[in-house]
């Protein structure tokens, strides 16, 4: 029996601990520090201002926090519901015994998920172009020369556009997860239920759903967190626009895009590093809580399975 000293284990872990401390913790601690100062583009000093940036963030009438957060939560809500819905439908279809060549369907479904999202985002941006995009061009064939959905210039259409792209990119992941869970359900259970006289609808809600949901729940929460932090796909399509009011961010300005635009984006002006840092710390707390929730749920899920 090999005895490993506690110190030896620590020695092994030391490189990664040091790396994590330097690479992960330093920026976080610096941002935290920054959020308590008044450092801006024109003020290089780090003067301590206490909670002033947070108070401005939460209580100032011109603060963008709740507007941007509201947009983001709405986006996450709509996207995640559609992920699960489409994922379930495709997984149930693929799990049907009469479907042949499941592996071919799976690989086809996984193409959008596996393709680099930056590339697909730019393709979608072109598809959505009002004047020259294929979607509107095809529409014009059927509805006349004046047809056109203002995909990227109308606020509602632009929001729908970034939802469509994100759902298209991500629902195959749910198909895989749900299909995996479905295939782990023994066929005998379903057969037994059929014998007992349960119809398809009852079999789904009473049998499939309770057995699948423990596996899907953690995936849903994790996916909500990544959608919350969505940056590249949406930014490449809309840059956070369209602007409907010059005094407010555009309707697809989700939290990450907002922070980028405020510091490095084409619209960055009067960069208020400290206020953006306070915004970032607030997001960090929210995401931290969500991650904690995800962990609790996945542990809970395991307890149910066991």
């Amino acid at each position, binding site marked *: 029996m*090999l005895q490993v000293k506690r110190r*030896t284990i620590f*020695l092994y872990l030391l*490189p990664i601990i040091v790396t994590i401390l330097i690479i992960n913790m330093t920026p976080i601690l610096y941002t935290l520090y920054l959020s308590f100062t008044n450092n*801006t*583009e*024109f003020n*290089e000093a780090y003067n301590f201002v206490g909670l002033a940036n947070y108070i401005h963030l939460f209580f100032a009438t*011109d603060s963008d926090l709740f507007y941007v957060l509201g947009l983001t939560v709405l986006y996450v809500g709509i996207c995640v519901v559609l992920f699960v819905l489409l994922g379930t439908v495709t997984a149930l279809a693929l799990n049907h015994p009469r479907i042949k060549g499941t592996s071919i369907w799976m690989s086809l479904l996984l193409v959008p998920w596996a393709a680099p999202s930056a590339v697909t985002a730019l393709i979608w941006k072109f598809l959505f*172009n*009002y*004047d*020259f995009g294929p979607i509107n061009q095809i529409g014009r064939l059927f509805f006349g*020369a004046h047809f*056109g959905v*203002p995909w*990227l*210039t*109308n*606020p509602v259409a632009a929001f729908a556009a970034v939802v469509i792209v994100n759902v298209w990119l991500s629902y195959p992941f749910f198909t895989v997860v749900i299909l995996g869970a479905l295939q782990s359900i023994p066929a005998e259970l379903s057969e037994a239920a059929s014998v007992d006289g349960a119809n398809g609808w009852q079999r789904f809600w009473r049998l499939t759903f309770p057995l699948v949901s423990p596996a899907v729940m953690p995936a849903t929460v994790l996916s909500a967190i990544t959608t919350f932090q969505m940056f590249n796909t949406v930014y490449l399509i809309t840059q956070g*626009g*369209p*602007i*409907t*009011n*010059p*005094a407010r961010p555009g309707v697809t300005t989700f939290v990450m895009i907002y922070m980028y635009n405020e*510091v*490095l*984006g*084409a*619209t*960055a*002006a*009067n*960069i*208020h*590093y400290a206020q953006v840092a306070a915004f970032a710390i607030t997001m960090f707390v929210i995401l931290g809580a969500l991650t904690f929730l995800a962990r609790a749920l996945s542990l809970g899920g395991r307890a149910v399975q066991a």
Partner: protein
Amino acid sequence: MKRNYSILLLISMVLALFAVACGSSVSSGGSSSPAQKETVTIWHGWQGSYLAPKQAIFDAYMKLHPNVTIKLVNQQNLIPKSITAVRANNGPDIIAWADDSLGELVDSHTVIPMDQYISESYVNSTYMPAAAKAVQFNGQVWGVPETVEAVTIMYNKKLVSADQIPTTTDQMLSFEKSYEQQHPGQYGIVWPTQDAYYNAPWFYGFGAFYVKPDGTVGLNTPQATAAGNFIASFRPYLPKQLDGTTASSLFSEGKAAAIIDGPWAYADYATKAGIDIGFATLPAVPANNNTRATPFVGVKSLWVTKNAKDPALCADILKFYTDYQNQLNMIKVTGEIPANQQALNDPVVKSDRAIAGFANQAQYGTPLPNTPYMSALWTPVANALAAIWTGTQTPAAALAAAQKAAVKGVQGVSA
């Protein structure tokens, strides 16, 4: 026992790796080598055929000074990125951009004064007066001017003749309308209709202004609203999503008869797209006593940042870049107005059609405001134009909201 040895071995390997990593970083970062290799990084916004003649000058410098490497990096959102990167000691040695950003860069302590290396008398005697003034701020010299630029109308001679190009804003509207009706799927005059720089000619031509050096914002004036209404009146005759890229491709592909654009784009249109280009000045505004539409006249400049390892070397590169012969060779391709006085006086410049075209327009322009307050204006104006062009707000409402945002921004600058 064997296990223990392998653990020791592993640890020693890790330690060895660390030692190697540290050792190499010391040797490469040290300045003990006699060769004194130096790298100078320049962040810029030059693109396409416009970049090649500029790159050629730096290549020539590297040939003369084999120890110097000059790295050109094209950056999007150049100014905010530079300010943030320089503060993190991660920025370039030299920034090349138009003079409107100088006030912002000085006040944010991003660039350093260069009087020590580039004297005021050198600047005043080498460059044309307006350009020499543009690199001086708060009584100090901050860099060198490269070229003087303004947007003007460039038209495709195959599609329209000189007498068809409108000379008043009223004619311009009817020209857009009739051209679009006669050539479905094609457009008359295109320009990025949601960009604060490209639309300045209309605002200033209608008698409005963006911001004064004292911080007064002028977006909610009747003149500004008139300019906004004028821009909005083109909505039925131009693409709904008309940004710089779209405008350029429409003109390059012959789908737009004319474009409002600057010298940075000329080389691409003339050589790459092979268009026979005619020049015309922007139209007069009858609503404002026939004042000419007034574009911003910018001075493209190069400044040295706080991160520069060797400001003296940077100064030498900048002087070389803007000397008579190099500028002359460059503008023959780019069609820019040189800031170098001697190059400007050269007969080649006088006879060049493109340079004459841009110079002709520049005389009706207004200097780009280089007050740091200007940094608070670009976004609100662009946002107002976006709201106007998509039709989500009336010009008056959009500009009133932009005024509010800009005033808040100006307060942020002076706070």
